């Protein structure tokens, strides 16, 4: 079973990102489960949401504690949360950022990828400069990283979930698919 954790801030469409990705997994033959950690529902507050995907039926209904991969929709979160908490050794961490973090030590033992989802979202006029809507770009980058679900399934899921401005969102996902930067394994001793 694959377990993925998304980090974002209230208002960034973090929950919707996991729903779209779960739907895309389902379209390519996976059983899926996606759910948010509900706390204070405030714009800007840190939000977590999870996806489980498996070829077999999924019975477990607990929070995700040891994700295989992590997606961070807002790099400012890296200052306040431990994004690698419980992340399995060798798992990917995909960050919305124009460049890799200056200090790579907290990511040692994991694989790093980054994508400038803010810029892509603004190119496609999704959201405002102070609050770009990055969730579709992030799942586009995810599709490139893991090949599963493929981009066609991601595009279909976006069309279902965001019927308004679907094409702009799919365009953003495709750009992110093409532009995501794979840094790969970060060597060294983990100091986080």
């Amino acid at each position, binding site marked *: 079973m694959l377990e993925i954790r998304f980090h974002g801030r209230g208002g960034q469409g973090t929950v919707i990102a*996991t*729903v779209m990705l*779960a*739907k895309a997994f*389902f379209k390519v033959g996976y*059983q*899926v*489960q*996606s*759910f*948010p950690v*509900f706390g204070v529902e405030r714009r800007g507050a840190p939000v977590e949401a999870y996806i489980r995907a498996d070829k077999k039926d*999924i*019975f*477990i*209904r*607990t*929070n995700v*504690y040891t994700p295989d991969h992590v997606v961070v929709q807002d790099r400012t979160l890296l200052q306040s949360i431990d994004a690698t908490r419980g992340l399995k050794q060798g798992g990917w961490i995909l960050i919305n950022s124009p460049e890799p973090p200056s200090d790579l030590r907290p990511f040692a033992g994991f694989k790093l990828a980054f994508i400038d989802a803010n810029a892509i979202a603004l190119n496609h006029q999704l959201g405002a400069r102070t609050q770009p809507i990055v969730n579709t770009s992030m799942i586009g980058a995810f599709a490139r990283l893991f090949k599963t679900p493929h981009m066609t399934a991601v595009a279909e899921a976006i069309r279902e979930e965001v019927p308004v401005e679907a094409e702009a969102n799919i365009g953003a996902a495709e750009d992110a698919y093409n532009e995501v930067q794979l840094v790969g394994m970060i060597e060294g001793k983990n100091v986080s």
Partner: protein
Amino acid sequence: MKKVLEGSHAVAEAVRLSRVTVISAYPITPQTHIIEYLSDYVADGTLKASFLKVESEHSAIASLVGAASCGVRTFTSSSSQGLALMHEILHWTSGARLPIVMAEVNRALAPGWNIWADQLDSLSQRDTGWIQLYCEHGQEVLDTVFLAYRLAEAVSLPVMVIMDAFFLSHTYEPVDVPEQELVDRFLPAFKPKFQVDADNLVALSPLVTPNFYMEMRHNMAKAMEESILQLAEIEEDFSNIFGRYYGPIEPFLCDDAEIIMVTSGTVTGTSRQVIQELREKGEKVGLLKIKLFRPFPSEIIRKALGPAKKIAIIDRNFSFGAGGIFAQEVRAAMCNLSDCPQIFGYIAGLGGRDVTTDLLEDIYWRTKKSEVLSEESIWMGLQEENHAVERS
């Protein structure tokens, strides 16, 4: 067709397919999504129903008492404090023998203010004469709404379809949403046994003297009892049409089990995984899911649990001064067996605390290793530091 749906959306789809005529509800987290979807369906004409906007949960259920008395199919949904506010009219609904169906999202009662999963809200209403069905996953919630209408209308008693906050209400998963034609075949239009009718005037719910009150209550008791048999027939019909079956209880890997864990709600799903893993290690362990809590199916529970040596009951609720409520009911069902298994009651997951695989495994090993039977509830996963402050 199978779609990835939120648990709340699965409820709304089932209500739409049940051709409900009157919906009355007041929003409360975590129930709100259910009535948001439904108000959308009513607003855009997908569901031809009246959606009554009321000022409280008490009015929500009271207005449905009026609507159901006029002989139409009705729906409401609530949670926690909202359900508590309905309490007076919950008794009225069952006493008036009205087949109202409610989706109840299990949420903790305040204070401390808490929006997360806990069964005490619905279990506090166990004596109100409502049938109670506890669900495990999104498909079961959708299917149970259909079963609930058939059952409610067959025995003239209201039914609560109960689901855990967030772990079920806000979880997206694949759910098969059936075609309208199939649902119509299973659930025909409601034919009321009595109704307000301007041409044939009757007095509903008048003063009832001691000469008749007991007989009325006895009739209700018989209807409750009969609902176990009715549910079995209705489920057979359901499985013939839809190919799915749940049962009032579900024994899972119980055949040669020496220890049986007893669960309800979403803890059941996680327990299935834990028990399969324990089986792979050679442990003789099984699981009994209790879906039907009112009426309590004592006889079949006795049969399912009787052969085990030890029973571990997991309650996401607590009755102060008594214990876990499922544990009380199971003990009462088992007490006259000559060779009664040892019964252990565990309290876990109150106020939405996660009931993890580790915690469930811990419950199994504790039960296996316990040599002395304790009748006290065993509270799992308490944080010792916080607890010590309270005690000092």
